[in-house]
């Protein structure tokens, strides 16, 4: 009984620390597909500095915690996107940036995937065509809120 209580006390306290750490160093993958990638670059560049949120763009999926799907996903690109998502280490999060990644947008055609949530678990949707860099920042802040509320998503309890 005592052993059980100990475990729980440690878990709840550690949850806070782990979530604090995770939410303040979200490293997204530079995964630019289309128009939204330009706004993603603008968000990371000098005028609207993304680094101040602890968001540093990484080029390798092995080093990334977050994938921002910025742009239209076609049927030719979808398997590659899925593989890159699988290459990322846990915990991993997905932001669907722009109308195309959320729902397919204006491109309701034979070659376009109608929303990236058909094959990836999307955490935050950022609408817009393309969304402003500020909108992307708001999306990342929303993801931070989500991470802070997470429980037991580490170690053997995952």
């Amino acid at each position, binding site marked *: 009984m005592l052993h059980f209580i100990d475990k729980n006390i440690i878990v709840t306290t550690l949850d806070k620390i782990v979530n604090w750490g995770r939410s303040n160093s979200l490293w997204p993958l530079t995964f630019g597909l*289309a128009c939204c990638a330009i706004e993603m670059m*603008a968000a990371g560049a000098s005028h609207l500095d993304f680094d101040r949120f602890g968001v540093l763009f990484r080029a390798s999926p092995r080093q990334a915690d977050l994938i921002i799907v910025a742009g239209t996903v*076609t049927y030719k690109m979808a398997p*590659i996107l899925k593989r*890159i998502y699988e290459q990322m280490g846990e915990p991993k999060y997905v932001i669907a940036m722009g109308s195309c990644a959320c729902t397919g947008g204006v491109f309701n055609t034979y070659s376009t995937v109608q929303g990236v949530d058909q094959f990836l678990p999307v955490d935050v949707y950022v609408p817009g065509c*393309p969304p402003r860099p500020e909108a992307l920042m708001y999306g990342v802040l929303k993801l931070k809120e989500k991470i802070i509320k997470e429980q037991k998503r580490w170690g053997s309890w995952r």
Partner: protein
Amino acid sequence: MGKLEIEKLSDSNFILQMGPHHPATHGVLRLFCEFEGERVIKITPDIGYLHRGIEKLSETKTYPVAMTLTDRLDYISSMINNIGYCLAVERLLNIEPPPRAKFIRTVVSELTRLSSHLLWLATHALDIGAMTVFLYAFREREQILQFFEKICGARLTVSYPRIGGVRFDINSFVLDEIYKFMDTMLNRIDEYETLLTENRIWIARTKNIGVISAAEAVSLGLTGPALRASGVYYDVRKHMPYDAYNEVEFEVPLGENGDTYDRYLCRIREMRQSVFIVKQCIEKMPKGEIITDKAIDIDISPERKRLFVAEDSLWSGFIAFLDEKRELIPKGEIYSAVEAPKGELGFYIVSDGGGKPYRMRIRAPSFIHISAIPKLCEGHFLADVIAIIGTLDIVMGEADR
């Protein structure tokens, strides 16, 4: 001591797949690279990862609505895409925008050229390893995008020009701001040059890399700065003037060697010319209408709308573009080109008299420039392949459509 025998390492070549997800491919371009040692012997580009069916989709949209799709072609210079499309439809309809609209279009297209070249400079320098240029170039690019916001309310996908004019008038104080910014812009371009033009690393990475002769460039169909760096004098703004380009004075910068360094210099000089064009246009800006009476638009005034509404239509707001029986747009076909930052952007439209394009074919410069990659990369190192992709200024949205 006997002779030193050196064994041949291997007969087979090394094959590397680069992309489609790679931070330096400027979009979702895939390259099959075949190496002999460290030298490239063959490169095969694989495209189609961003094929969204824009050409087919535009056949289902009316003429004014199809313009929103041209924004997403070359998303870095959406204003020029819009203007290119509007010019093609205007030539089909045989209408002409009023003088003020022409000058406004010239101002915004040159601002777009500036922002597009800034993005090219930023990413090209970042690929080669100069991070500072990226931050400097984005500083000015944000300011240009803010001008677009002041003009039309959008940053990237603007849809600002209309068939027969432009949507909004530009306030005089915004014009003054742009004029003032152009002076700072000239200083900023000098600043970029101090970082790169005489930089030893930059010269080592770009001189004699990706050399293409004038004859080869013409036969491959290159246009824009990629062609002019080889010394060929061809600019749509000079040879087939549209909008207000025949009323302003500017030079067309030419290169000599046709290498990556010359293409860089060409674009930098072109940015200076763009600044001069914008200043001249603002000085000469005439007053008056911004859209012609014959314009077709989704948000036209009721008087004009009556022309396009079927008399017996129950819903008067429903424009009779969708009526296939009436000949709204003259039958025929048209090819019209504009000088986009990447090269000659052409729209070939076939009209069957209905309210929608029967066929819209886009001559995208990026698509043609990709076909030059195998030729340019021959015999270079892998690191130079990155420089060559950057120098051609490829946007996959336009290449795959």
